């Protein structure tokens, strides 16, 4: 089948999509957007988190065909050109990135949290990121990164 979908603001088209294919496979293997990661492909790790019509979803659990005519925003669509999103910048600065395989999913999840809750408490951050596994960091610096991004956004200067 053919799927037409808006990705990071661009109108895209994927051909020969097989019915069983996930949004994650379509993004990674057909549309040249491998930023969303494939750590489990069964909805357990959050590494594939993307926005589908502005709601964060696990791209591995969404069938590619379900995205016909809808809007997807991936980790590749968060930065404005060379300017990183504040969440992305905070992840780099706080040392929240080691191997980075969890990072795209965590960045999208944290981005979504800070849109909904601009100044989250620690338990709120933990609850919001509970679906995203990271094997390298022990999460401490990921929490630091989200706190840093929240402070940045609260200070207004760098909010987008």
């Amino acid at each position, binding site marked *: 089948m053919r799927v037409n979908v808006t990705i990071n603001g661009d109108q895209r088209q994927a*051909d*020969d999509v*097989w019915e*069983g294919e996930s949004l994650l496979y379509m993004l*990674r*293997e*057909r*549309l*040249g*957007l*491998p*930023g*969303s*990661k*494939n*750590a*489990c*492909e*069964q909805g*357990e*790790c959050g*590494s594939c988190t993307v926005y589908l019509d502005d709601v964060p979803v696990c791209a591995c659990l969404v069938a590619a065909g379900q995205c016909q005519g809808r809007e997807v925003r*991936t*980790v*590749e669509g*968060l*930065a404005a050109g060379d300017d*990183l999103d504040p969440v*992305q910048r905070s*992840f*780099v*600065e706080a*040392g929240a*990135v*080691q*191997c*980075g*395989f*969890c*990072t*795209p999913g965590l960045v999208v999840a944290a981005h979504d949290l800070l849109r909904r809750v601009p100044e989250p408490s620690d*338990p709120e*951050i*933990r*609850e919001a*990121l*509970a*679906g*995203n*596994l*990271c*094997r*390298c*960091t*022990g*999460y*401490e*610096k*990921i*929490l630091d990164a989200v706190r840093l991004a929240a402070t940045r956004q609260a200070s207004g200067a760098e909010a987008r």
Partner: protein
Amino acid sequence: MSKSAPVRTPTDLTSSVAGGIGASPQRPDGNLKVRGEFAYASDLWHEDMIWGATLRSPHPYARIRSIDITEALKVPGVYAVLTHSDVPGKNLYGLEHPDQPVLAVDVVRYQGEPVALVGADHPETARRAMERIAVDYEVLEPVVDMEDAAHGRGTPLHPGGNLVRHVPIRHGDQQVTAEVVVTGEYEVGMQDQAFLGPESGLAVPGEDGGIDLYVATQWLHVDQKQVAQALGLPLDKVRLTLSGVGGAFGGREDLSMQVHASLLALHTGKPVKMVYNRLESFYGHVHRHPAKLYYEHGADRDGRLVYVKCRIYLDGGAYASSTPAVVANAATLGVGPYDVPNATVDCWGVYTNNPPCGAMRGFGAVQAGFAYESQMDKLAAAVGLDPVEVRIRNAMHEGSLMPTGQVVDSAAPVAELLRRVKDKPLPPVNRTEPVDIREMPGGASNTTHGEGVVRGIGYAVGIKNVCFSEGYDDFSTARVRVQVIGGELSALAHTAACEVGQGLVTIMQQIVRTELGVERVTIAPMDTTIGNGGSTSASRQTYVTGGAVRSACQTVRGRLFELAARKLGVDAVGLSLHGGKLVSDLHGVLADLVDVLGDDVVDETVEWRHRATESLDPVTGQGNAHVQYGFAAHRAVVDVDVELGLVKVVELDCAQDVGKALNPEAVLGQIQGGSAQGLGLAVMEEIQTSGGKIRNPSFTDYLIPTVLDMPPMSIDVLELADPHAPYGIRGVGEPPTISSTPAIVAAIRAATGLALTRAPVRPEHITGT
């Protein structure tokens, strides 16, 4: 298949944020990673590529009567179906003993063993073709008991029997007795590395009949050697480039898809991509050896150790992998970081039909650590001492003797680390209304408001060797080039040492900046065009590759001084480099290095090795086998819901000596991540097997800590320089994984009063149901 993506290959890391050693500059790959643009091995793509897939044995032990690929070859879109008869070279590989077939011939020894390969136009096509491969198995009774295997009972699975290695250590008086004796039997479950980036890579057939392999691995040159042997190619026709690695923790030291993808690529003439999914990943790499440990500690009435006797069994599963080295570690580190005047240690590593086990962070020291630290708590109770006090009374220090007879010849601040974690303030008890249930065992599932919840505190300390041991020629190769690019002084560092997430690329930049005063440092992709970098394991890369990069910088510096001497007519003695300037002791700033260099390029490659070690005497286990020892201590505070058996780790504090923190923030990241893996082993992580079969090969059933499980950590980092190591550093990555598990289990024991002799602790161990 239509496709509009660019080819993604590993590129130079040019991002260079100022900061020499001792600072914490940002990673040069950080921006790429947060943008989703870093090229991991599973992201690679090549024009005209096809997909490879692996048919694996469903049985832990079976004879293969026949393999029929006729129907599979008929599936449209299939390019090749390969079996053992298509392996052109040696169909056996392995890290220490080549005992593992690339593709099974007439027998399979574990569930998940590769039997056949398919190359097809789509992963789904490959899957369908695999269903059409008919393998006729005669199922055999699997060998699953490690103690039987160690003592010659049961079917031999390999020509030499089921014992892979036995290491005995005899230290001091073997007949000595003691007033106080405590004994214990312990078990450690099989842990998985659970790196997030699945095994994957791309094999591209070369025009010269060779292969270009882009993979996620821990050691390019050991892969190269094994792939070349299996393909029957000379080394120079097998070229490897490291692609983005999504974590490793030991699980990528053995081959996974490297030979398989190469075979398919050579047979089809097409680039072949292979990516495991999570299920296949559980079968596709070795795990941490499960262990059974029998300990006896003898002490005087003051709790001073008189002797330790122990027997340790490690289940290596179907193939040897790195079992011999894991056995040596468990044995030599088997009594822990204590002064033990008399020791009798025996450790066996064996073959069974369980999943193959090999390297995982902590490497033998983890299993022993759980047992000897549990014993120290028992000893404390037996002599009526505080658990920290009994440890401090026996703590090893610089100058102490290991049971191998090796003198610990640099800092060993075991007592100090324990004091530090003990003196940290304790977290408040979560009992004042309103109770925040998110902080309770069970969390938001609202299982308790504090009823049935008891708090406990536990301590542990551990020891780990750093670098390769037992006389191994352990070295790394580094190339450093300095030149002027666009009017700016630039350096390039190139090694084959694998960046797997730990931050070696940052450390390399820092070292070059410090040694050469050059701010802009590019890191070239890691590949086999340069000499061996050694393994990214044994907490060794900052030590060995860091040492090699420093040494290459020193050679480059000497060349720059010669150049300056020649061009400026000054004496090469008494020169130094600072902030891109050439400085003389006598005359101050002489010139800009940019001007001294002009169009010249200084490019030097060096091999650097740490001081030599010795093998262990096969009868007494004596010998200076290790390069360096690292130590960490933990204090764990837990709340346990004794009715439901749920555990909440409330706080996990750590103190560790790192010799010198080249990058203090990265050191914290290692301690936090290592402690989290120890927490996983304490309360949740285990590959459960029955009859050799894995019962939980998914992230639904194999749980690793989430952000809700991982408590805040307060960390003290000591910097007691090791005079033998570059910059005084001490390997950081593994020690925190060792003491974290026993500290948490001790805390659960303190809360519940239960004996808890097995890690991980499951709810039913607490509730007794």
